[in-house]
């Protein structure tokens, strides 16, 4: 059992910076998901925690004890690698036994531990198979067994589900979370799949360009994104952004875009930053489910044409283009009658809009409690 503290972690590969001063605190027994696009430094972070890579600078603490210079097996970490890496020339049983080779347990103990872990993950039938004789899901189970058999204090997973098909991924995702809660191990899970992050994480750490953008519960990440990157990265389809200005007229505040305008609700104005209307421009963000499609023109509404529709069964995504090539996505109920080429009007629900600074990307209302 361990809590982890990463203090100003910095990692360079030659000239490229993989981690640029990462500070991260992970509580005991929680699942933290590191989420970000590829190359954002999430796997590097994991390798530093495991001890496979030494950070260029910065310290790593497990339970307030500095482990930065300790080799991996002394840190008592377990790791499941990308595509559930196993030793390809060894059977599942021997793969699992490899994890116990430094524990100095006697043979009976080792056999009993392997049996226990095989029970836990339901992999008895696989124990004498070689990795290439197993399916992707089975390999993943064996890799998990290999990792937890050591009774680790930290459990690290590096996109273990990335190479599996969607159904298997959904099944194993639940299994991993249940297992983690049952064993009460601190887990750090790396993924670029936001659905995985949202469903598995107690907390999500969104990373980009070697910097931690935001850490919080899935709810916080989704509803109170700290900046435009987090807002755009989490959520599918992604948030729509419009660049415009805020003006004051007759005690009302109005966001004005070249094609539409909205009046800002009172609550936003009360909490607004003083400078909102003094800014040259701001970016308005609104999620696809918070746009309303209208058949008739209405005051302020954006006029566009339907580019195409995607029917997902439980809902339909309408892609609208305006100004010729700019597109935005709107989620509507499944029975949507209009079709390609029809003119349509779009209005945002003002209680669900976000404002971002065009230069820094910062959420201008972040301090406010929106949940």
């Amino acid at each position, binding site marked *: 059992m361990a809590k982890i503290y990463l203090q100003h972690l910095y990692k360079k590969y030659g000239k490229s910076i993989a981690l640029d001063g990462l500070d991260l605190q992970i509580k005991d027994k929680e699942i933290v998901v590191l989420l970000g696009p590829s190359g954002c430094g999430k796997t590097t972070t994991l*390798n530093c925690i495991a001890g496979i890579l030494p950070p260029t600078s910065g310290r790593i603490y497990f339970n307030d004890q500095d482990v930065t210079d300790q*080799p*991996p097996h002394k840190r008592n970490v377990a790791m499941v690698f990308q595509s559930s890496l196993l*030793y390809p*020339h060894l059977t599942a049983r021997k793969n699992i036994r490899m*994890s116990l080779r430094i524990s100095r347990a006697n043979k009976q103990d080792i056999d009993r531990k392997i049996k226990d872990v095989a029970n836990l993950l339901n992999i008895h039938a696989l124990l004498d198979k070689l990795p290439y004789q197993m399916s992707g899901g089975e390999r993943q189970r064996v890799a998990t067994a290999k990792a937890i058999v050591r009774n680790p204090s930290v459990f690290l997973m590096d996109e273990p589900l990335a190479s599996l098909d969607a159904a298997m991924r959904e099944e194993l995702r639940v299994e991993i979370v249940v297992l983690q809660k049952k064993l009460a191990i601190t887990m750090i899970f790396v993924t670029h799949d936001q659905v995985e992050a949202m469903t598995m994480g107690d907390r999500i750490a969104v990373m980009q360009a070697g910097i931690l953008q935001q850490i919080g519960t899935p709810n916080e990440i989704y509803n109170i994104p700290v900046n435009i990157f987090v807002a755009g990265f989490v959520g599918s389809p992604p948030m729509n952004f419009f660049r415009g200005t805020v003006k004051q007229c007759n005690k009302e505040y109005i966001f004005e875009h070249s094609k539409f305008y909205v009046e800002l609700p009172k609550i936003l104005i009360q909490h607004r930053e003083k400078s909102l209307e003094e800014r040259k421009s701001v970016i308005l963000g609104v999620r696809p489910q918070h746009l309303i499609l209208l058949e008739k023109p209405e005051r302020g509404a954006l006029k566009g044409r339907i580019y195409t529709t995607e029917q997902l069964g439980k809902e339909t995504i309408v892609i609208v283009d305006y100004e010729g090539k700019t597109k935005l996505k709107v989620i509507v109920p499944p029975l949507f009658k209009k079709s390609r080429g029809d003119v349509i009007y779009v209005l945002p629900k003002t209680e669900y809009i976000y404002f971002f600074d065009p230069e820094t990307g910062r959420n201008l209302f972040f301090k406010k409690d929106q949940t």
Partner: protein
Amino acid sequence: MSKKAIKWILILVILLWTLIPFYWFLKIAFMTPAEISVFPPHFYPHKPTISGFFNVLGFSYTSPSGEFFLPSGQATQVKRGLLNSFVLASMVTCITMIVVTPLSYAFGRLEFQHKNKLLIGILLSVALPPVSILIPFYILFVKVGLAGNLIGLLLVTLTITIPFVSWMLIGFFRNLPPVERLAIIDGYSRFGAFIKIIVPMSKVGITVGAIVSFLFAWNEYTFAVVLVNGTFATTIPASISGFLFQHPEPEHLAASLIYSLIPPFIVAYFLQEHITKMNITEPMGG
């Protein structure tokens, strides 16, 4: 003509191309000198004899019908040649694999300074025709006393097998899954991971590399003729060539050729499974 017919005709041509010379000396090996000189030639030995196989090893032979065959004059060279070739090929195989396994692992999986330049160096030495370095080696070896000496031939052979087998195995190692990270988590050092994990994992590739170097050393002819022919250090290809420059003994030449084929046949027979399994692009694919 259909595509299939063309394919089979080509296969037939290639088979005849390889097998006719083989058939010719196999037939000669079981004939007496008198039968070999008959014209038109017999297509199979009418009175087969195994005298040649005794004679090239230095034994006289009396056939069941009472004919007496004297030992070959090349017998000493053939015996030494077989022994030397076996010693040489085994040593070349061991040394090559001891050098090449870590070498190609390093090139295949590690990053270090000037890696590409060094790699080009290795690959260029594969491209170099061996004959071009023959004379320099000969002059050098005469001066340092390595001509007519098995050690000298060993050194020259290694200059060819090491780069060639490295070139084969670098790709093999590069395509292994990244198990080093797994090994580090399991408490292995880098070197321990190499010895205990990578080497057992790479059995197939290492075996194929070993076969290639054994066969190369066994068959090597050019350097052997120049450096060791006619000495105690002669190898079998060189001593067989000795038959060409004296009173013709075709049945002895053919018999020693068959002897020289036995070890490569054994090697190929027992390891054919590994050879077919060797897959450079996906070494662990099942």
